[in-house]
C-alpha cells in the first residue's frame, strides 16, 4: 500500500466477514526476506552493526491453545485460560518487562490479531486492547509504536519475516521518517504466543 489510509477509508471499505472490513485483511503477494543469524563474536567483524537476540519462546502447546487467538478462544477449547500476561519466558530470558519495550512488532494477517497479542503479552488487560490502541499510542512517536513498516496489512505478507527485517533496521537507526527515537529493545510477539526480544 502506497497511499495513507485513514479511519474513514477503513470504515468505507466493504465488509468481507463482518465485523472485518476489506482493510482489516492482509495483502496477498509474493515476496522474500532474508536475515543472517550468527554468533555475537562473528557479528562483531561484519560491515553492518549487529542486533542481538536476548530472549525467545516458541508456540505453546496444550489442549486450551488455539492458533488464531489466545488460549481458550477456539471452537475445541472449553475453558478460560488463566493468563500470566507479562510473565512469559521470553521476558525472563531477556531480563525485561513489557514496560521496557520501545516498539512492538506482531503478526497482523488480520487487524484484530494485533489486539490479541497486546493482551496476551501484558501491554494491556484482557478486553482493553481496542481502547489501548487509540489516540496515537501505537504510532511512531507514540508510547508503543507497532509494525512501523506497515506489517502484513500494508507492506506485504511475508509471514512476519519482514517484521524481523524492520526490527533490525529500527535498532540500527536506518528507518528515516519512521525511525523510533532511541529504540533499544524491540519485541516480536505473536497472538499465538511465539516471541523474540531484540536489543541494540
Amino acid at each position: 500500500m502506497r497511499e495513507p489510509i485513514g479511519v474513514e477509508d477503513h470504515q468505507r471499505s466493504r465488509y468481507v466477514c463482518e465485523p472485518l472490513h476489506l482493510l482489516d485483511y492482509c495483502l496477498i503477494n509474493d515476496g522474500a526476506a532474508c536475515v543472517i543469524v550468527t554468533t555475537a563474536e562473528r557479528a562483531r567483524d561484519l560491515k553492518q552493526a549487529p542486533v542481538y537476540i536476548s530472549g525467545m519462546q516458541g508456540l505453546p502447546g496444550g489442549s486450551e491453545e488455539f492458533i488464531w487467538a489466545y488460549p481458550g478462544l477456539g471452537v475445541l477449547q472449553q475453558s478460560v485460560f488463566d493468563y500470566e500476561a507479562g510473565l512469559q519466558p521470553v521476558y525472563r530470558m531477556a531480563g525485561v518487562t513489557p514496560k521496557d519495550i520501545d516498539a512492538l512488532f506482531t503478526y497482523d494477517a488480520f487487524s484484530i490479531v494485533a489486539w490479541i497479542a497486546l493482551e496476551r503479552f501484558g501491554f494491556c488487560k484482557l478486553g482493553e486492547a481496542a481502547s489501548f490502541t487509540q489516540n496515537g499510542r501505537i504510532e511512531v512517536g507514540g508510547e508503543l509504536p507497532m509494525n512501523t513498516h506497515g506489517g502484513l496489512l500494508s507492506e506485504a505478507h511475508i509471514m512476519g519475516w519482514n517484521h524481523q527485517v524492520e526490527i533490525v533496521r529500527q535498532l540500527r537507526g536506518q528507518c528515516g521518517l519512521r525511525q523510533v527515537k532511541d529504540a533499544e529493545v524491540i519485541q516480536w510477539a505473536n497472538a499465538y504466543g511465539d516471541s523474540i526480544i531484540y536489543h541494540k
Partner: protein
Amino acid sequence: MAESESRYEKPLPAITSLNQPYWEALKRHELRMQRCDQCGRIWYPPAPLCPGCWSRKFTWTQLSGRGRVSAWVVFHQAYFRAYEKDIPYNVVEVELDEGPRILANLLDVKNSDIHAGMAVEVFFDDVTDSITLAKFKPRAS
C-alpha cells in the same frame, strides 16, 4: 424441506468412521457428542480421544441442544457460488449448556440483533435425503 443431493449445491460433510455417529444422530434429529467415560468431558468436533484426559473410552451422548451465542460473524462475500443468494449470512459459535462449542447458522433472526449470550436452541435442517445439519434458533431465555 429436503432436497435431493443433486439439487443441494452447498458443500456437504465428509462422513468418516469417526464422525458417522454424529451425522447419524442428526438424521434422527438428535444432537449427540462424545462424552468421556473417564473424566466426563463432552467434546466437539469428533476426535479419537478426549482432549481433556486423553482417554479413548467415550459414549455418544444426547445433548439438550440448548446454549448461548459466544461469538458470531456475518459473511458478505460468497466463497462458494451456492451461497451467493444467502449473503449477508451469519455464522455463530454456540457454547452448548454441556460445554462444547459448535459453529452453525442462526435462523429466524436479523443479523443486527445477534449478540453474545443470546439464548438459542438447535434446529435440525434436513438439507438432503441423507444429511441433516445442526442449525440454531433463538429461544426465550
